[in-house]
């Protein structure tokens, strides 16, 4: 009898369990297909991704340009997190990837087919662009990005403080270390180069007469000069004359403007804010010579527009990029000079940019031309991270520079092998 009722019970329960599982399966299927896909529309909707610029009005400007475009609705993603590149790389793998995005030229994006060839829209105006900017975006004769702005990075200092301390503008790294010591008082630190010091890695290498990679795409940073530079940076880091753990990073002018330091590493973009806060009491100088045989240097950074080659709207996105960043010269000038100061990569726009013709901005342009080093498209994010680890291990921590450079060599060579075979 008990057996009978048992089997009765289990037959029902099996049916119910089956029904339950069927229902669960249906729901799970819904969960899997959660509406991420719907991008296969008419191509009228485009998205673009920008990192958050620090200057007031920049976000509104980008959205204003987009709104004026009649052939598509362009939505803007304004990424405020500090690691724009990880956010960008992660998003590009998904179906939510933007159709257009700003970034720096890096060859792995070309090799993995993530960025579209833009030669056809750039070629007609190629002669107008700074040749160095064209070169840094070219792989095998094809141009993969439209440069929007060039941003040289150098030191800003307050002449009044240097005069008071009896310090002349440093031309060597040793002089900079000495200046930082003399300029440090109870309330003001001598120098600020960012909390993690990563902004000066490349300038330090160039000023040591070395480079990130050579023309054959081999490691060129592992030289005795660079090792000496790392040791000097370590000395500077431990001197107590460096402003550390400031509330804002190097790209924000606040540290110098608020009187936390006497010299700050920053970029051309912040020049209007420096001038507004400090008036005439502001000067600039390039990264000093790391070793005596080196040469002063300036990193000509900047941002470029790329088109997501794996997106659903490649042609529409290219059309928009052409419309805004090739044809709309008024907007390009507005973008380069109305908020922060940037150097327009196109000669025809630079010629008309009166704000950059005199005074401090003109000096910035001079440093850009005289000492500038542009991006090397073969120098990718993984390699950048490798050298950041060198600085973390040997400058901020007291590790042996030779050993940490060897470790970086391994990482960089693995990446080089992947990219160039």
């Amino acid at each position, binding site marked *: 009898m008990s057996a009978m009722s048992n089997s009765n019970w289990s037959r*029902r*329960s099996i049916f*119910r369990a089956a029904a*339950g599982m069927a*229902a*669960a399966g249906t*729901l*799970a299927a819904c*969960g899997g297909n959660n509406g991420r896909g719907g991008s296969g529309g008419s191509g009228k909707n485009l998205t673009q991704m920008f990192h958050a610029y620090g200057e007031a009005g920049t976000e509104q400007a980008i959205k204003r340009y987009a709104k004026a475009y009649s052939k598509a609705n362009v939505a803007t993603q304004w990424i405020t997190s*500090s*690691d724009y*590149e*990880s956010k960008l*790389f*992660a998003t590009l*793998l998904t179906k939510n990837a933007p159709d257009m995005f700003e970034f720096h030229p890096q060859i792995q994006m070309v090799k*993995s087919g993530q960025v579209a060839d833009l030669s056809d829209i750039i070629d007609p105006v190629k002669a107008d662009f700074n040749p160095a900017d064209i070169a840094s975006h070219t792989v095998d004769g094809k141009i993969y990005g439209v440069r929007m702005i060039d941003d040289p990075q150098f030191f800003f200092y307050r002449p009044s403080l240097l005069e008071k301390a009896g310090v002349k503008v440093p031309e060597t790294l040793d002089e900079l270390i000495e200046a930082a010591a003399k300029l440090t008082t109870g*309330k003001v630190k001598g120098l600020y180069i960012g*909390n*993690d010091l*990563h902004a000066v890695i490349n300038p330090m290498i160039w000023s040591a007469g070395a480079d990130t990679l050579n023309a054959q795409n081999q490691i060129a940073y592992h030289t005795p000069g660079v090792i000496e530079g790392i040791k000097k940076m370590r000395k500077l*880091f431990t001197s*107590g004359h460096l*402003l*550390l*753990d*400031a*509330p804002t990073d190097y790209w924000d002018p606040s540290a110098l403007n608020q009187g*936390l330091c006497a010299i700050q590493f920053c970029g051309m973009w912040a020049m209007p804010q420096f001038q507004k806060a400090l008036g005439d009491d502001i000067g600039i100088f390039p990264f000093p010579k790391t070793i005596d045989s080196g040469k002063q240097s300036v990193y000509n950074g900047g941002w470029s527009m790329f088109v997501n080659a794996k997106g659903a709207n490649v042609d529409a996105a290219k059309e928009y990029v052409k419309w805004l960043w090739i044809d709309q010269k008024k907007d390009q000038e507005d973008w380069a000079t109305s908020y922060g100061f940037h150097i327009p990569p196109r000669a025809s726009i630079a010629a008309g940019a009166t704000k950059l013709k005199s005074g401090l901005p003109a000096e910035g342009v001079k440093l850009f031309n005289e000492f500038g080093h542009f991006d090397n498209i073969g120098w*990718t*994010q*993984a390699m950048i*991270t490798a050298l*950041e*680890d060198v600085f*973390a*291990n040997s400058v*901020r*921590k*007291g590790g042996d520079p030779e050993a940490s450079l060897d470790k970086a060599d391994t990482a960089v060579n693995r990446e080089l092998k992947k990219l160039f075979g």
Partner: protein
Amino acid sequence: MSTTTTRDLASPAPAKATSAKPRRGLRGNRTFNFWLFIGPFLLGLMIFVYVPIGWSIYLSFFEARFTVTPSKFVGFDNYTYMLTNPDFVGSLGTFTVFAAFIVPTTWALSLGLALLVNRLRFMRAFFRSVFFLPTACSYVAAALIWKMSIFSGVRFGLMNTIIGWFGVDNIAWLSNPSPPWYWFVIVTARLWLQSGFYMILFLAALQNIPGELYEAAAIDGAKPGWQTFRYITLPQLRATSTAVILLLLIAAYQAFDEFFNLLSKTTWGRPPLVELYYTALGENQDYGAGSAGAVILTLLIIIVTLFQGKLMGFGRSEEAK
């Protein structure tokens, strides 16, 4: 003051069994009700917990770079890679030490707070809320407060102002790893965020200790204070302590938010999860190796937990009553 009554978590009032009325239709059907109540949670658990775990284990046996639907089976290669990766193994080591420190510290602090609050004659609800509130704060927000205002390296940072009164120079709390002040920043943030929650657990347990025990002890001549605490309170809290230590241990190995936010761009002080984040989601996008690391970490947590349970008798909690 209805909030002061605390229900015994370990033995809630037994649910009244519904009288088995012979009733037709789905409403009275126990099996149907079972699925009705369990179904949504089970479904959520399946989709958001079990499927990802299973997928992760699956991924760990494949070469999965830049994809989560890999095709190249590599066996245990990812595991070998992770176990020979000095960064990952180093982070496991560091965090075993970290756990060995933070678990007893948090345990002692939350127990101490609970004892203090339990002793209060007035404003008990106020203090209980005050100590519990940080639990509601997001780790990211707390990390930012710690980084930007309390442990900022500039002269007007809170800690630098305070040590300035004693004539001590400004300290770069986070940038400079020697001496490793960053541990101080992290430990204080973590204690602030976590102690309140465990305090509440202890408080509930303290209020469940029968008063007769203390009375009997007093009659037998036990001195109030340490003796009573050592021989009555502590043994009575055994079940709660075990659970708290268990939760703390898991939390220590799962540390992520405050480390990620406080120590960006460093090569030190990286918990296993931050290391895995950079492996799986950084520029390498290596989901295979990342998943293998996650499985290793999970196994480690399970082993440590089982060992600790064996040591302290988790599951034998009823005896302690």
